[in-house]
């Protein structure tokens, strides 16, 4: 919104907003800074803000000690796999709901949403038991499937809201010209749907990356992603602030960067299109 205000007012706004913004961001900034300190400097009293000897030692130690690469790889597989699998299942569903709506489309959408509201803890044991009996406890494939199912309602909803914005007239014109269903999908819808699909992919990757109920309860060693890696830094290792910070920074950095690209999609994806 372009409103004109006096420069003084603008200066006050700017100062206040930056102060609050930095205050909110401070814990993250502090973690990143601490990750470059030595353990001694990390707990120095009074705390050192910038004037310390920058070192990469913590990153080296964390990587050597904890097999960070495997946790990272698990996170990528689980978050990426569940998102892609979810898209493969959700795209046809959302497409048909957006372009061939029936009387029941709304009910189906709302019902899908209701499955998302199911509290995980309420079905923890059945899932746990099924995983044991199928021999897939601490297994990446199991987590890919479970996280896909958890996020499937959000994926369908996001895609649906994007697909609905594609003008139907274009489709009708294509049908008039004799386009088959396959051609319609391949040459008309897909190119127009790609931005929406990309946004959905991004947001759900982030949600799956940060998921910390199933990943903590269903993994031990083999399939443990970064959420579990960090949880293992609970005391006593957590008292080594510099190493904790390095591990934390490595776990959140990729998502912070992706997250900045997905601000707008965040609103759409998490409010199910109810706030635009």
């Amino acid at each position, binding site marked *: 919104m372009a409103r004109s205000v006096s420069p003084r007012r603008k200066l006050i706004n700017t100062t206040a907003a930056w102060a609050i913004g930095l205050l909110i961001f401070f814990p993250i900034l502090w*973690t990143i800074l601490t990750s470059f300190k030595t353990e001694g400097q990390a707990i120095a009293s009074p705390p050192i803000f910038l004037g310390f000897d920058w070192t990469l030692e913590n990153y080296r130690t964390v990587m050597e000690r904890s097999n960070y690469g495997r946790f990272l790889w698990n996170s990528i597989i689980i978050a990426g796999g569940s998102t892609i699998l979810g898209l493969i*299942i959700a795209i046809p569903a959302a497409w048909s709901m957006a372009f061939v709506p029936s009387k029941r489309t709304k009910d189906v959408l709302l019902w899908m949403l209701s499955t998302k509201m199911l509290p995980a803890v309420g079905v923890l044991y059945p899932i746990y038991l099924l995983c044991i009996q199928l021999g897939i406890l601490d297994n990446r494939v199991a987590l890919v499937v479970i996280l896909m199912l958890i996020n499937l309602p959000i994926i369908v909803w996001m895609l649906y809201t994007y697909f609905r914005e594609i003008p139907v007239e274009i489709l009708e014109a294509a049908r008039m010209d004799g386009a088959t269903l396959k051609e319609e999908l391949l040459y008309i819808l897909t190119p127009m749907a790609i931005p929406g699909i990309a946004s959905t992919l991004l947001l759900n990757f982030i949600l799956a990356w940060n998921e910390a109920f199933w990943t903590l309860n269903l993994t031990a060693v083999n399939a443990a992603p970064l959420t579990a890696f960090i949880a293992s830094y*609970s005391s006593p290792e957590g008292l080594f602030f510099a190493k904790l910070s390095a591990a934390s920074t490595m776990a959140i950095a990729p998502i912070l960067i992706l997250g900045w690209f997905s601000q707008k999609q965040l609103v759409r994806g998490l409010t199910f299109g109810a706030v635009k």
Partner: protein
Amino acid sequence: MATKASRSAARLMMAPAVILLLGWMLVPLIMTLWFSFRTYLPLRGGDKGWTGFDNYVRFVTSSSFWPAVQTTLIIVVGVLIITVVLGILLAMLLDQPMWGQGIVRILVIAPFFVMPTVSALVWKNMFMDPVNGLFAHLWRLFGAEPVSWLSDAAMPSLIMIVSWQWLPFATLILLTAFQSLDSEQLEAAEMDGAPFAKRFFYIVLPHLSRAITIVILIQTIFLLAIFAEIFVTTGGAFGTRTLSYLIFQRVLESQNIGLGSAGGVYAIILANIVAIFLMRIVGKNLDH
């Protein structure tokens, strides 16, 4: 319009998603219901048979039930009040013209992208540690005795951590709502001499009411289920055991599946009550 062939094709395309979600919902739900009516202790004799509503009665009459309900309510209501009030103020500020708006927005939103185990651990150790935490340094600077945050003031600390994680979400959604506010109406009111408070309560707040409702409902559903934050910080000690954490402990720690499942059924009912309201709003929005 849609032909018969495309209709059946559409149904076919929806089938995988619908069937998968139906299975995902029904199979565990039926299992939880089944277990909730049985005495089932995998480590102490296994399935000892049908007990009727015993587990349901025992879950609500156990001494840890009401404290857990109270804890859950305090966390949910506390975080909601903090995030909605601060969210409105922050969104109002961010909606003003300023320099570097984009960067400030990024700074404010960032906590939402931090995984829960990281934010819990960073707060627990680097800020709230009674010896080396930043708060302890700050307290000593003013000559005060450092506080053992997560044992002596566990609930306020936990509420603070969770609020920090959810404030960005509230702010972002309220900001989106602010941006669709008709500024001409506001300017007209301002020119007619309506004071700030009046403009806020008669124009801004009614406009935001839907966004606020949605923030409250969505956050409630997520807040009822917070897990990692408690798991990492207090492990449910010092009065921070919520209903879902209590169920988690019954199921996985004490391996009393029947009792935990009965608790799970209560949690599902509770979440559904909230969900019904959310669905109504979302459903209405689908119509236009």
